[in-house]
């Protein structure tokens, strides 16, 4: 079937066969689900609720006994904090730029891979490898062997003499993040390219559509759902970027490359300010939920939840 078929959100239920009476006890059906569900609720929801609770407390770990209820004061303080606003801006820049650049590169690589050529399997293996390097290892290697002002490869290749991490801290971090996430985008987009029906493409060729025309009016529209999914999933991962910043710049110089996860970490584990860092955590969750809502809708509506995209 064509992959443009849109499955209703309730596909999972409508696919259900009429059941004989012996399954009348719903708890029997729920039993296999419950352990996973209860475990997930306990481990993921409880800490978050505690975070919400902490966010209304003034509590600094270096002042024992300082814990008391302060209402929305932490939120007021957080929004008045220019570093927080800077970190928020950096988070948005980092996420948007990295998603777009890695998607553009991923699209290019996927197009190169979407044809038969000598050693295609090897090339694909090479291209996914940066994703399989430990992010911590990747960050440290870029910081040293690539970006080092004296012995780094980048300055050698470009013939420059730039201290990348001091002069372009956020850009350097983004380069590493893009490098790490491009394979992810490539794989998703490649799957989209390969899902195209060969007949339609051939028909377009027979009808005399040029290569660019075929790409623009057949491939791209069909690919758009894959691109959206790649962008949203990528954004969810990249918004949480921590490894690269922690290991490459420590958010610096100053706060030039501090994003929200790193700032919250700093306030919590270096400033010991439980209340304010919790308030920031809550804000991040609310912002993420906005992106997440779109993703959830996309996963359910555009993709056939009952069967996946073939």
């Amino acid at each position, binding site marked *: 079937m064509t992959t443009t078929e849109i499955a209703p959100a*309730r*596909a*999972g239920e409508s*696919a259900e066969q009429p059941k004989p009476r012996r399954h009348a006890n*719903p708890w029997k059906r729920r*039993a296999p*689900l419950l*352990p*996973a569900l209860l475990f*997930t609720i306990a481990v993921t929801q409880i*800490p*978050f609720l*505690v*975070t919400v609770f902490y966010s209304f407390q003034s509590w600094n770990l270096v002042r024992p006994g300082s814990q008391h209820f302060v209402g929305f004061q932490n939120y007021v303080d957080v929004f008045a904090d220019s570093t927080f606003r800077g970190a928020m801006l950096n988070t948005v820049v980092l996420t948007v730029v990295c998603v777009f650049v890695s998607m553009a590169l991923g699209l290019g*690589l996927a197009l190169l891979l979407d044809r038969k050529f000598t050693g295609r399997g090897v*090339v*694909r*293996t*090479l*291209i996914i*490898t*940066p*994703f*399989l*390097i*430990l*992010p911590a*290892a*990747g960050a*440290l*290697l870029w910081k*040293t*062997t690539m970006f080092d002002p*004296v012995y780094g490869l980048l300055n*050698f290749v470009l013939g420059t003499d730039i201290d990348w991490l001091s002069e372009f801290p956020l850009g350097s971090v983004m380069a590493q993040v893009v490098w790490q996430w*491009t394979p992810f985008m490539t*794989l*998703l987009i490649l*799957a*989209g390219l390969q899902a195209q029906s060969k007949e339609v493409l051939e028909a377009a060729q027979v009808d005399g559509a040029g290569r660019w025309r075929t790409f623009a009016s057949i491939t791209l529209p069909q690919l758009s759902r894959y691109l959206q*999914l790649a962008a949203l999933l990528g954004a*969810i991962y990249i918004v*949480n970027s*921590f*490894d690269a910043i*922690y290991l490459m710049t420590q958010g610096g110089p100053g706060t030039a490359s501090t994003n*929200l*996860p790193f700032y*919250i970490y700093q306030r*919590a584990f270096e400033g010991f300010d439980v209340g304010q*860092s919790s308030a920031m955590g809550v804000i991040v*969750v609310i912002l993420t939920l906005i*992106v*997440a809502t779109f993703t*959830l809708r996309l996963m*359910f509506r555009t*993709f056939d939840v*009952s069967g*996946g*995209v073939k």
Partner: protein
Amino acid sequence: MRLGRISLTAFTWLVAILFVFPVIWMVLTSFKTEADAYTDPPRLFFSPTLEQFAGVFERGFLPYLANSAFVTVVSTLAVLVLAIPAAYALSIAPVKGTSNVLGFFLSTKMLPIVAAIIPLYVISQNVQLLDNVWALNILYTAMNLPLAVWMMRSFFLEVPKEMIEAARVDGAKLPTLLYKVVLPVVAPGIAATALICVIFSWTEFFYAVNLTAARAGTVPVFLSGFITSEGLYWAQLSAAALLASLPVMIIGWIAQNHLVRGLSMGAVK
């Protein structure tokens, strides 16, 4: 036309090699002496040595490696034990509100982990799980469970309905049904799901660096020790990075056909 194809292939190869070059450079550097690692211009040819690898183990790499292996295996097994029945109850014998449950699982994956780290730290401290591998086991299980449920479900849905019905008509009980009909079809899916979970557990950094230290530290924590060491040892760092990444690199290469399915939580095959 033919020439165009050859040059496009050459271009593709060139791009791929450039793209993966930092990895190639890591491998080369790991076989250098520190003196060879710091040269201007960078040295492509040198007499290789294994001293860096020996140095990594002298630095105490093994306990971290053991912690990583333990946490990865235990959390992956736990994920499978929880996810397989759950996926079954969301596909072959779907419960009411299946899409809500699926939505819930997915939404937990979107909750920024940084928002939960403070209570997790405080709780771990109170129950004596700070710098304990079991804290990571629990968290990694929760981290990978939604992904595994979604992914396993997409494999379960591939079991032909007719096969299940036929077995039911023949009077097969549930365990027989699962073992004889469902399992053979989904076995590759279970393997693929396990591999994806292994990759994510092995590479996880944020929980590990905040909740563990010398006793329960995993491989990424070992690596982060290199930023504080005085003057960076590039060659040794490269050797450590290579050793740390090799298990997931091999697994990822093996599982590359399933990688996209895992990364999209089963949405894309």
